[in-house]
Structures are given as structure tokens and as C-alpha cells.
């Protein structure tokens, strides 16, 4: 497999060189056109709208498409190197009336047009289906998720991003609590989560049904399960890039929701019509109060999240200022007296300037991110750790030799802190600071009408690390020229400067210590930075008008992963050793969308193996190298989600199956005597629980059925009420979460849990 990866690494570097090397400029023009597409309904940008430029072909005596594209999340589509002349501009998006106008581009001209689309006759669902069809390029490893996708999963209160993600193949959670996602073999801290370009460390709540990203607040999400480009630097496994919805620029909208699990409030509206808006969304968990009477079990968990946005847009610039605050508190196991807390605070702004004075649009992001987490035993000293960072990113592009190059430069000033107690002998309390600079450049090369190559190169560096070199490559082949079928490949190298350390042997805690990663150069020793090699191959087929098929195979090689050191004695341990890992597998997703019935079905097969030096790992294994399957190595995962609309109702069903994950058996309970200095008849000894071979056995399989039924009532044009009833774990399966070696208890996941919620909305 090393050889395999090496070949692709070299190949990707070669292709990158070819692409970056001077190439013959194609016969292209020098005019540019930027089209900003706005919805007349709420004054906000429309992502995914089709923007077409038709020219008149004198020879064939007919119009043909000269340039085509789809708007990005800012509603912007840009055409560069356009041959000067007269064009017919067509902007269309299902659900809106098509816009047409004549555009005349002079040589060297850069024109910015704002197009406002008014609502058409189609329903909202159709907007989604057709919009995605037009926008999706089926890139390997990428899943584009809309707010409507998120709403397909039966979730108390409303749809939530994390509930949706768990239905995707390759996405594993440690159970129903803890807020940890493992994506295609990667650990939670190897995933990058961005909200409007601002990093957030752990936005997933302690109940795995909820995150800081409810359906109502999300505009779109791009989830890269691997193979992402060099624009995303700093993580080695996956990227979840969330774009939030801006506030309504036309009118005030408010809603309130109350249910068995959540209380939520939402308010948005214009500060200055068509120019400035605000958006506030907040939720608070009620589970601590409502679940005990329903299930008969305590629910020592609570959380809240608040999203606040201020959006500003003129003809030449659009800015979003975003604030996010989350807080979680509770226990993963009710048998353990350990209170866990974590919180995220994110504040920042992102501006996109597309004024004519800029030859190319310019994007700035500036922000502050803070993450704290703690573990507080009721009978002992607590632990706490966190990370704070201030960052600035600049993204731009330039044209060289007839090709467009995107590039970006970012800098972060990071502070890592941890206050640990005496249990940790190697890792002491610390405060570390470091500055990190990163940069990338990427370009696309259309070889012919079938092949497109996208290559990028990134680098990160800090004072403690030599600069990384991260070439990445994506190739797509469209046999039919159009979007119906695509075969795509992605490969690349990924580095991570900072690392998160969690004792994954103990699922009863998710306390994480974050610190600057390995790679520090000492006088005589250099540890390698945590890094990964990705190789993905995907096939996407839009079958007919209503079916989508995605098949993917992947391999990820992880190098220098910090894993908990092993000792036979069961104690909390966040001392780490370095392991290498290999994750590989395949997955398939088939989706059907035709009102009133929609469903998707996913299957994923994967294998994750870690390998470490037995001595470093601290294992009591005799072999010099210890190979094991970590706790997130779930071999099979199968999910079915279906929605059916009838008589004003929407019924949703979600069923998921996962084969058993590895766990470590208990070898026994001992009362050890430190011989020969102590003697058995006079010394009571030390009580200890002994682990067996790490991850030597597997837990029972997991499966769960969730259902919901919802109906909206339009009281008057300005007031609507939506009611929802449903149940989690309908057939009350005792799905194991983990076996707690400290309390000798089998910890099960959520039992049968009915839910109800009611939401009222004013427009």
C-alpha cells in the first residue's frame, strides 16, 4: 500500500507541475462579467442559479451557449476571458422566473450585473431537486447538503445537520452521546469544521441528534469525506464547510418552537431593506427535564446554541458577520460521576468584494475562535483544556498564461491551554502559543470536453515546524460531456500542525487536550507531523430525472496519529504514542426524488487498522509492532431514509444499521501487591481493573428505526403552525454504547423515546 500511495503522490506532483508550467494560452477574450443573483422574495443571494451567456453563431445561424456556470454560495458567478461582443444573458433557477437581458461586453471591460429573480410557480421541494441537479458536479468525496436534505431525517424539533451526517456512509459516531464524528477512518479532531469560513472546533452537541446547525439556520453544507483541495489546510481527514443563511432583507420573520427535546427562538429581518439584515437563532435543550418522565431514565445532559448574523450587501461587496456560541454539559454515562462540559465561541466576518476596481473578486475573513472543554469528577480534581485562535484569511485569484489561479494566504495566532492534575505523568498543565501561516494555489485545466483536472498545492508552517508541502489533485471525466455521468479521482497529501488527544479506550469521556502537534525539532530528534495521504475514486450517475447513484472507493493512509498509550490497568490516560493507520473501503448511495416520495439508501464497507510500536504504545503485547482496529472501525453501515407527503402531512422514516465496533474486554479485577518490598499478608494492595488485548472483541451490532409525522397549518397569510410527532428507536432496541470498565455497567444508547414539537412562525 505504501508503494501504491507513493505512485499517486508522485503522479499528483507531476500533474501539478504540468499544470503550473507555462502552457499555450487558448484563444480567449479579455472581458469579464460578474453576475450577482438575488432573490426578490427575501433579498438574499441564490446559490446554484444557472447563469448562461448565449452568443449568435453566424455560420449556423442560431444561438448557442458560449459560457455557462452556476452561482456560488454568495450568489456570484464570474466569467473571465470572455470574448468581447454581444450576448444574451439568461439566469434561471427552478422556482423563480427566468431572467433574460442583452449584455454587451467591450474589449477589456469588467462588468458587474445584479440580477433579481422573482418567485415562479414551482414548489419549494422542486427548487431543491432541480437546483441540486444543476449545481452538483458529483465530485468524488464531496456531498453537497441542502437545508431540505437535513429536514429529511426524523429529529425531535427540526432537522439537524449532525443527524443527517450520521446517515451517510463512512460517518461513524461513538454512540448517541459525546458529539464526536469519525469520517472515513479519521478521528474527530482530524475533521475541519467551518462555518462561513470561520473554524469551529466541536459544534456537535452532547446528544448526537443535535448540533449548532439546525435546518432553519443552514443554507448549504459541503462535506468532503476526503480528497479535498488545498484551500482547506490544517486537517487530515475531512471537511464540513457550513454556509449559514443570511437574514431576510425584505421583511421580518420570527418563529418559536417547543417540544420534548428543545425550545427554540428565531428572529430575522432587514436592518435596511435590500442592504442589511440580521438573523438570530437560539436553542436550548429541555431533555434533562422531559426525558426522565418519558423513558424512566435520568438524562444528565443539557446544551444551548446561539447563532447571530449581520449581513450587508451593496452592488460591489457583500459581508457577513457571524457569531456562534454553543455550550454542552452532562454525563455520557449516568453511572459515572463525571461531568463533561464544552463550549465554542466563534466571532468573525467574511467579505467578498467584486467591485470593478478589482480585477478579480477579493475575499477576506477575519475572526476569533475559542473552544474549552472540561472533565469534572464529582469526587476529585477536574481537568480542563482549550484552544483560542485569531485568524485572518485572504483569498484572491490571478490570471497567468490564460489560466485562472486561485490562491489564498492565511495566518493564525493560536493559544493552547490545559490544566491537568497529577494523574497525568507525562502531559503536564501547559500554555503554548504559536503562529501558523498557510498558503495555497489552485487551478483548473480543462483538457477537453471530457476531462477536467483541478490541482492545488498548499503549505503550512510555524516556528516549530518546517513548511509542509501538500499537493492535491482532482480529476473528473464526463463520458457524456454533460453532468449525467462522472468518474472522478482525488488524491493528495494532508498535514495537521495541531493535534487533539482523547483517551479513546474510555468511551465514557470525550475530554480532549489540544496542543501544537508533533514535528518540533529538538537538538537530536524530530517527530513527524501528523499527516495523511488520500486516494479516492468515485462514480456518479444521474439516472433519468429522479434517480442519483454515487459509488466511491477510498483509501486513506494516516501517519503519526496520536493514540492513547496502553497499559493493562484501566485508568484515564491521555498520554500518547504515535501510530500509523490505514482506512479503506467503498460506499454507495442511491437516491430517489420525485414528489410525493423521496428516499435515499446508503451502504458503506470500511476497514481501519492502526499500527504502532509496542514499546511506544505501552502495550503488554509481545510482538514488536502492535496492529489493531481502533474503536471507530465499523465494518458495515447501512441506512435507509424515506419521506412521503400526503394530504398535507409529511412522514419520515430513518433506519440505520451498523456492525459492531471494536472494544477492549476486561481481563479481571486485581488487588496487586508490590512485591518483594510489600508482603501479601500485611499489605492490602492496590485495586485495579485490568484490560485485555486492546480492541480484541466487537460490540453487538447496532440498528435503530426513527419515525416522524408532521403537518403545517396556515392560520393566515402571516401565521403558520407546524406540529410534529415521532419516536426515536421505535422498536426499543437495546443498542450498546459501550461497556464501562470503571462501573462494570453496560451502557446502552437511547431507548424508545417518543417526541412531539410544535412550531409557530410569523412572516
Amino acid at each position, binding site marked *: 500500500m505504501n508503494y501504491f500511495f507513493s505512485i499517486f503522490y508522485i503522479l499528483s506532483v507531476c500533474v501539478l507541475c504540468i499544470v503550473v508550467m507555462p502552457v499555450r494560452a487558448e484563444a480567449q477574450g479579455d472581458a469579464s462579467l460578474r453576475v450577482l443573483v438575488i432573490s426578490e422574495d427575501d433579498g438574499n443571494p441564490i446559490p446554484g442559479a444557472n447563469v448562461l451567456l448565449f452568443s449568435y453563431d453566424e455560420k449556423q445561424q442560431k444561438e448557442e451557449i458560449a459560457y455557462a456556470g452556476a452561482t456560488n454560495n454568495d450568489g456570484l458567478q464570474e466569467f473571465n476571458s470572455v470574448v468581447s461582443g454581444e450576448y444574451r444573458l439568461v439566469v434561471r433557477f427552478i422556482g423563480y422566473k427566468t431572467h433574460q437581458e442583452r449584455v454587451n461586453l467591450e474589449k477589456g471591460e469588467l462588468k458587474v450585473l445584479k440580477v433579481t429573480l422573482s418567485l415562479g410557480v414551482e414548489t419549494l421541494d422542486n427548487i431543491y431537486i432541480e437546483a441540486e441537479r444543476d449545481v452538483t458536479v458529483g465530485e468524488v468525496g464531496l456531498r453537497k447538503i441542502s437545508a431540505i436534505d437535513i429536514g429529511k431525517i426524523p429529529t425531535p424539533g427540526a432537522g439537524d445537520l449532525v443527524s443527517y451526517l450520521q446517515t451517510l456512509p463512512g460517518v461513524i459516531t461513538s454512540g448517541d452521546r459525546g458529539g464526536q464524528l469519525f469520517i472515513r477512518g479519521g478521528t474527530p479532531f482530524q475533521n475541519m469544521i467551518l462555518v462561513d469560513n470561520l473554524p469551529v472546533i466541536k459544534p456537535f452537541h452532547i446528544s448526537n441528534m443535535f448540533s449548532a446547525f439546525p435546518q432553519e439556520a443552514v443554507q448549504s453544507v459541503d462535506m468532503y469525506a476526503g480528497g479535498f483541495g488545498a484551500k482547506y489546510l490544517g486537517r487530515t481527514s475531512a471537511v464540513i464547510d457550513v454556509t449559514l443563511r443570511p437574514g431576510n432583507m425584505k421583511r421580518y420573520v420570527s418563529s418559536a418552537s417547543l417540544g420534548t427535546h428543545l425550545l427554540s427562538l428565531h428572529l430575522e429581518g432587514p436592518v435596511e431593506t435590500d442592504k442589511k439584515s440580521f438573523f438570530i437563532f437560539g436553542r436550548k435543550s429541555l431533555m434533562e427535564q422531559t426525558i426522565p418522565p418519558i423513558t424512566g431514565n435520568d438524562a444528565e445532559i443539557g446544551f444551548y446554541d446561539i447563532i447571530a448574523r449581520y449581513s450587508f450587501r451593496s452592488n460591489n461587496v457583500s459581508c457577513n458577520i457571524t457569531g456562534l456560541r454553543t455550550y454542552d454539559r452532562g454525563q455520557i454515562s449516568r453511572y459515572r460521576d463525571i461531568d463533561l462540559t464544552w463550549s465554542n465561541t466563534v466571532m468573525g466576518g467574511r467579505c467578498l468584494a467584486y467591485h470593478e476596481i478589482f480585477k478579480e473578486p477579493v475575499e477576506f475573513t477575519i475572526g476569533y475562535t475559542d473552544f474549552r472543554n472540561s472533565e469534572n469528577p464529582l469526587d476529585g480534581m477536574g481537568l480542563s483544556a482549550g484552544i483560542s485562535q485569531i485568524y485572518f484569511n485572504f483569498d484572491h485569484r490571478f490570471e497567468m498564461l490564460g489560466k485562472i489561479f486561485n490562491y489564498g494566504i492565511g495566518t493564525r495566532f493560536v493559544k493552547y491551554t490545559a490544566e491537568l492534575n497529577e494523574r497525568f505523568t507525562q502531559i503536564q498543565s501547559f500554555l503554548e502559543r504559536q503562529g501558523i501561516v498557510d498558503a495555497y494555489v489552485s487551478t483548473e485545466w480543462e483538457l477537453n470536453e471530457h476531462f477536467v483536472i483541478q490541482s492545488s498545492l498548499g503549505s503550512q508552517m510555524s516556528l516549530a515546524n518546517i513548511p509542509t508541502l501538500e499537493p492535491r489533485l482532482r480529476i473528473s471525466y464526463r463520458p457524456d460531456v454533460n453532468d449525467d455521468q462522472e468518474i472522478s479521482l482525488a488524491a493528495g497529501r494532508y498535514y495537521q500542525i495541531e493535534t487533539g488527544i482523547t483517551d479513546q479506550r474510555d468511551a465514557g469521556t470525550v475530554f480532549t487536550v489540544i496542543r501544537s502537534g508533533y514535528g518540533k525539532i529538538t537538538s537530536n530528534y524530530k517527530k513527524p507531523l501528523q499527516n495523511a495521504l488520500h486516494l479516492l475514486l468515485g462514480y456518479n450517475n444521474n439516472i433519468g430525472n429522479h434517480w442519483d447513484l454515487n459509488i466511491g472507493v477510498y483509501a486513506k493512509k494516516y501517519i503519526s496519529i496520536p493514540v492513547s498509550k496502553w*497499559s*493493562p*490497568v484501566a485508568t484515564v490516560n491521555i498520554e500518547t504514542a504515535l501510530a500509523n493507520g490505514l482506512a479503506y473501503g467503498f460506499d454507495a448511495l442511491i437516491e430517489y426524488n420525485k414528489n410525493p416520495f423521496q428516499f435515499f439508501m446508503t451502504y458503506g464497507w470500511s476497514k481501519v487498522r492502526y499500527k504502532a510500536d*509496542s514499546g511506544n504504545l*505501552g*502495550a*503488554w*503485547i*509481545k510482538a514488536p509492532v502492535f496492529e489493531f482496529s481502533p474503536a471507530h472501525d465499523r465494518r458495515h453501515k447501512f441506512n435507509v431514509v424515506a419521506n412521503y407527503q400526503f394530504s398535507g402531512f409529511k412522514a419520515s422514516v430513518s*433506519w440505520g*444499521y451498523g456492525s459492531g465496533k471494536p472494544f477492549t*474486554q*476486561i*481481563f*479481571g*479485577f*486485581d*488487588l*496487586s*501487591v508490590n*512485591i*518483594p518490598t510489600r*508482603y*501479601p*499478608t500485611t499489605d*492490602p*494492595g492496590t*485495586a*485495579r481493573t*485490568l484490560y*485485555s*488485548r486492546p480492541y*480484541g*472483541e466487537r*460490540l*453487538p*451490532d447496532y*440498528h435503530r*428505526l426513527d419515525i416522524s409525522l408532521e403537518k403545517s397549518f396556515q392560520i393566515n397569510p402571516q401565521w403558520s403552525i407546524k406540529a410534529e410527532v415521532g419516536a426515536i428507536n421505535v*422498536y426499543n*432496541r*437495546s443498542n*450498546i454504547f459501550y*461497556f464501562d470498565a470503571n462501573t*462494570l455497567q*453496560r451502557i446502552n444508547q437511547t431507548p424508545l423515546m417518543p417526541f412531539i414539537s410544535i412550531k409557530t412562525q410569523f412572516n
Partner: protein
Amino acid sequence: MASKNSLIVTFIIFIGMFASCDNSLDAFDERGLYSVHGYLGIFKESNYIRIKELRSPLVPDSTRAIDATVTLQNLRTGESEILQDSVVQFDDIYTHNFRTTLDIVLETTYRLMVERSDGHTLKATATMPPFIAQTKIMPTGGNCLTYIKVTFIPVKDRKLIRSFVGFSYKKRMYWVSWPEARDADTKFTYLYFRPQTVLERTPFSIACGDLDTDSLYIKYYHYGPDYFDDTVDDTLRVPGGAGEFGGLYQKIVSFHIDTSHIFD
């Protein structure tokens, strides 16, 4: 409508198939039988070995009785003895310490067998050291700043010796663990220390003149040759079980130093 119904029925049957799957969990490794903590000491009249059933939680009811028959056999002579349990209670936990009066002699291997009533047996062996090491202490008559070398003759494997330097202070004996080394010429294991440095390793500041007597002591354990075999971590020295079992002897030697001189 018929096709929709059959789809629903198929789905329910499908889920029912999974719902009937085994959902049990065996949290314990069946291979774990007993933990053993004890050693066979050559100069001791009787030796005690603590045995504990690994699957029994550390609660009074589970520890009150033990399902174990413990036998010790001299593999050279074939002589064997069934060990008697002597229960010692610490707080509310019962410990089972099996006593042997078998003669423990040099260069002999003993086998300990712990048998459960269902026939599962744990076996561990302990081989005694082949000789009693002689100690050579040089120089004699030094003071607290004199470097002293204690050589264990003819022990060449330094991991078989574990030693402590001791002194009497306010009518109590204190022992400071000291690392062993191997002589490059003779290959013998030795200790090398300065008394003042040993005293500085204690948590309280003691001057040489504060000692009760002018004697220093060397306590050392000489382990049998197989004591550390087949082990990586010291918690699992008993194959198939846990704990620590082996053969050794303990000796204490003393020597005098000049404690009258007061150093600045």
C-alpha cells in the same frame, strides 16, 4: 396500493430479522483466571502467595470465598504441597494468601498450580537463584563524601539485583532505591554511591551527623534467572493470569562510615 403494502411488509420483515440478532455482550476475557502476587524466598520459614479470582469484583460478597486449589511442587524432587488459605481482611475486602512451608532451596524450580473447580488451571514457575551473591564493599572507613562501591559477586545480569541503601534516623529505618550498574571489566553488578547523596534523596534534609548510628545498610533482592522472562510489563508476569510470582532471596549487609566529620 398493493405494491406499497408489500414494500412496507418487506421492510418490517427486514427489520424484524435484524431485531432478532444476538445482542449480548461478553465483557470479560475468558482467559483471565487468577492473579498471583507473591514470591518464594529462600531464607523464609514460610512464604505467602496472594491468589485472586480475576472475574470477582472487589466487593465483600465476591471476595469472601475463593474457588481455587493451590499446589506448589518442587520440580527437582517431585515433592508437592497443597497450600492452605489464610484469609486476611483489609477494610471490607477479603484477600486469600496461601501459605507454603516447603523448603525453598537454591537452583531449584518450583511450579505453582492454581486450579478452579471446573478444571481450568493456571500454572506459573519460579526458579531460585543458583547461588548466594557475595558482597564486596570498597573502600571501608570512608566518610559521607566518599564514593562507595558495592559489588555483587558473581552476579553478571544486573536486572537480577534490586538494591536499596538504608540508614537509621530517629529510630526508624529508611531505604533509598539505588540503580545498579555493570562493571566493564569484571562484568559484575555493582552499586556506586556517595552517602551524602543518598541522604539528599530523602524528603527531609538529613546531615550525616544526624544519623542514629554510623552504620549504613545495603538491602538487596537477588532474583531467580527466570523472574523476568516472558514479560513486557510487570503487571502480567503470570501467563494466563496477572500478577507477579518468582523466586528470590533478600539479604542485608551493613558497613560503617565516619559520620563525625561536619561538612559545610
